[in-house]
């Protein structure tokens, strides 16, 4: 049954990944596809910055620029940041809580494939008549009026990938509630697990409003409904509310797991228990909770009235309190610690001031009267890039270096890692710090070009130069990945040497069944406790026994593929109806066939029992150094 040390052909490996339900392999799928979309979104960003580098530039056309900025935002949020976080959640959380897999391995795979096909569908818009062009927020008054199929790609693509995200979120909730190892109480869970838990709860509550909003938009655009059309008695503001009821929790869905990654990194490389663990947990939960009470601060200028503006302004500022608690706890974790400045730790240290800068501008924006000045200016662009790059992307890069050995069994080169870090950090601040001032000087957000000699020329050029630094940093990181994987120097359980949590008690990468025997957790930082008592391994909590494993399945792929096909039919039936059945006659059959594939594969899954298989005790006793104990 052993899957390691077997030379297999490319097709066999491909088939393995297409059908896998193993959380470690799904993590790699998320990492690769999230990384791909990160590069796509990055190229879009570079094109935006090249267009804005000099005044009155004609590098791209106005319409194409709108598509670029829309797809940059949508891709980075939905198709890069979230899947990359899911990559680390999948790779690490089951290990951190001492589980053999997530609660629903089949759904884990389904969640990934839905996200993947949704993302591909969205990006095919580039080749099929133009990408969405109404901004990543796709405000209804713009998007209802948008010609072509761009917005239809947005609506259908996000609907499909959103379903995948919702499935993944629910899966992590159930996993963390039900699958913790003996002794792993809630208040012994590592912070990354805690923040995954809270972020998954936010996904559970935040994605349904997006689904509803997208459905209303879908009916407006594809079936002649008028939910958002003011001239027909609709209300365009409803989209904004639904979008931001989802959208604000969404940014916490992104930042909380990054907080979790940093908490674990800071504690590991300070060789100290996380300062104020209980306060950290409480702050995480509170941020998640408050995240739902503040969405209207994105809409201060829509005319909600002073009362509503005041309520949402105060609620928004309140979030600074738990966030401040977390900042101080990180500082105090480092205080007096024996700090090692490895690459992940560098990211963690740089993250604190970068994120605080983004937080401070956040509080400035939360002040409703002042927001009338900042609104839709580059100040806002600077703010959210400070929180999203300074928080989430630094977290993802830190996590990539920190968890790489656990995911792939090799160690990324530290020197190249530090070069990546410095290039990226300098580039990031170079690009976005100056945009605060561009915004205050009056440069509007999402603008295609600006006139020369208005005081915007130099700062925009500096900003573009900064963006190139970030691009070079990403290229160095890619080179680092390739060099590391080609050299293929294998590492042991705990390559950083100071691992505190359960994932470092198991080999890198872990065997497909994870823990041979579930570990006994005796406190916070369970591996550290064992190390302090002179042991190198966890004490098992159960005798060696048969392990029940799920079977691989191709059904999730087919199920998602069906929706992908159906989406084309749903979209082109607009043209079919518009042409009175003359053109696009294939659209309705394609819709029906696609839905048939999905529903058929659901039926197969429901009607055909799949009990999985057992790894027998005898086989486990033969395998020696593959994690756990005998």
């Amino acid at each position: 049954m052993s899957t390691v040390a077997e030379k297999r052909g490319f097709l066999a490996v491909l088939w393995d990944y297409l059908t896998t339900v193993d959380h470690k392999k799904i993590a790699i799928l998320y990492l690769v596809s999230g990384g791909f979309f990160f590069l796509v979104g990055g190229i879009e960003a570079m094109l935006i910055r090249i267009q804005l580098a000099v005044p009155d530039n004609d590098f791209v056309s106005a319409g194409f620029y709108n598509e670029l900025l829309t797809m940059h935002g949508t891709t980075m949020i939905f198709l890069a940041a979230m899947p990359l976080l899911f990559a680390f959640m999948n790779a690490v959380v089951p290990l951190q809580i001492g589980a053999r897999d997530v609660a629903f391995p089949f759904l884990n795979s389904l969640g990934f494939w839905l996200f993947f096909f949704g993302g591909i569908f969205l990006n095919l818009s580039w080749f099929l008549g133009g990408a969405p062009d109404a901004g990543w927020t796709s405000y209804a008054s713009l998007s209802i009026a948008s010609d072509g199929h761009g917005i239809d790609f947005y609506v259908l693509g996000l609907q499909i990938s959103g379903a995948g995200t919702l499935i993944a979120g629910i899966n992590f909730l159930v996993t963390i509630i039900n699958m913790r190892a003996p002794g792993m109480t809630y208040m012994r869970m590592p912070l990354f697990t805690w923040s995954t838990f809270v972020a998954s709860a936010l996904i559970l509550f935040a994605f349904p409003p997006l689904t509803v909003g997208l459905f209303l938009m879908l009916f407006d655009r594809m079936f002649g409904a008028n939910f958002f059309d003011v001239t027909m008695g609709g209300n365009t503001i409803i989209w904004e509310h639904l979008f931001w009821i989802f959208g604000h929790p969404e940014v916490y869905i992104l930042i909380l797991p990054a907080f979790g990654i940093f908490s674990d990194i800071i504690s590991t490389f300070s060789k100290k228990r996380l300062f104020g663990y209980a306060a950290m947990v409480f702050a995480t939960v509170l941020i998640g909770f408050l995240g739902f009470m503040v969405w209207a601060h994105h809409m201060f200028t829509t005319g909600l009235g002073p009362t509503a503006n005041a309520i949402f302004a105060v609620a928004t500022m309140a979030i600074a309190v738990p966030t401040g608690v977390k900042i101080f706890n990180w500082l105090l974790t480092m205080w007096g610690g024996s700090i090692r400045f490895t690459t992940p730790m560098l990211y963690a240290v740089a993250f604190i001031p970068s994120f605080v800068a983004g937080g401070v501008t956040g509080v400035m924006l939360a002040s409703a009267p002042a927001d009338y000045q900042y609104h839709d200016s580059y100040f806002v662009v600077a703010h959210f890039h400070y929180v999203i790059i300074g928080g989430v992307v630094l977290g993802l890069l830190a996590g990539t270096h920190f968890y790489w050995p656990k995911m792939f069994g090799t160690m990324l080169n530290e020197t190249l890692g530090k070069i990546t870090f410095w290039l990226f950090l300098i580039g990031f601040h170079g690009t976005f710090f100056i945009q605060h001032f561009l915004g205050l000087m009056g440069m509007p957000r999402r603008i295609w070009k600006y006139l020369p000699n208005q005081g915007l020329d130099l700062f925009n050029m500096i900003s573009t130069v900064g963006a190139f630094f970030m691009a070079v940093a990403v290229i160095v990181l890619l080179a680092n990945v390739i060099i590391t994987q080609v050299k293929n120097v294998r590492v042991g359980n705990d390559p950083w040497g100071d691992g505190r949590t359960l994932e470092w008690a198991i080999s890198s990468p872990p065997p497909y069944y994870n823990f041979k025997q579930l570990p006994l957790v005796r406190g916070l930082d369970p591996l550290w406790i064992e190390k302090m008592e002179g042991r190198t391994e966890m004490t098992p909590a159960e005798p060696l026994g048969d392990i029940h494993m799920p079977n691989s399945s191709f059904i999730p792929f087919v199920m998602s593929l069906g929706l992908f096909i159906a989406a084309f039919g749903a979209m082109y039936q607009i043209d079919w109806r518009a042409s009175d059945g003359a053109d696009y006659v294939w659209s309705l059959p394609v819709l029906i066939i696609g839905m048939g594939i999905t529903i058929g594969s659901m039926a197969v899954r429901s009607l055909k029992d799949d009990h999985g298989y057992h790894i027998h005790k005898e086989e486990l006793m033969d395998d020696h150094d593959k994690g756990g104990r005998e």
Partner: protein
Amino acid sequence: MAHETTSANPKVNYEYRRRKARDEMRGQVTSFAMMIFMTFIAFIIVLADFDKFYAFPILLVLAAAQVVLQLYYFMHMSHKGHGTAALFLYSGALIAFVTILTFLTIVWW
């Protein structure tokens, strides 16, 4: 005293389970009666043509009480081990409430 039990577990305390089942049944019957009674009141309020100012709040309160009884007695949320489910249920209800409140006050004003 070897009672016939449906469980293979020898530790099952038959008397205890019997008592629990009786208490459970009493709770279910009581709440069922209350629910019928509340439904009856609701119909009377509408039939008697009460002023809307009174009728709407009373109907909403009765509906809320029905939901609680349904959840706690018929869907067993009063039992142990439902804390997490209850937490998520109430969080969801709160978020839905805030959303509806906002729509009623500042969207459809």
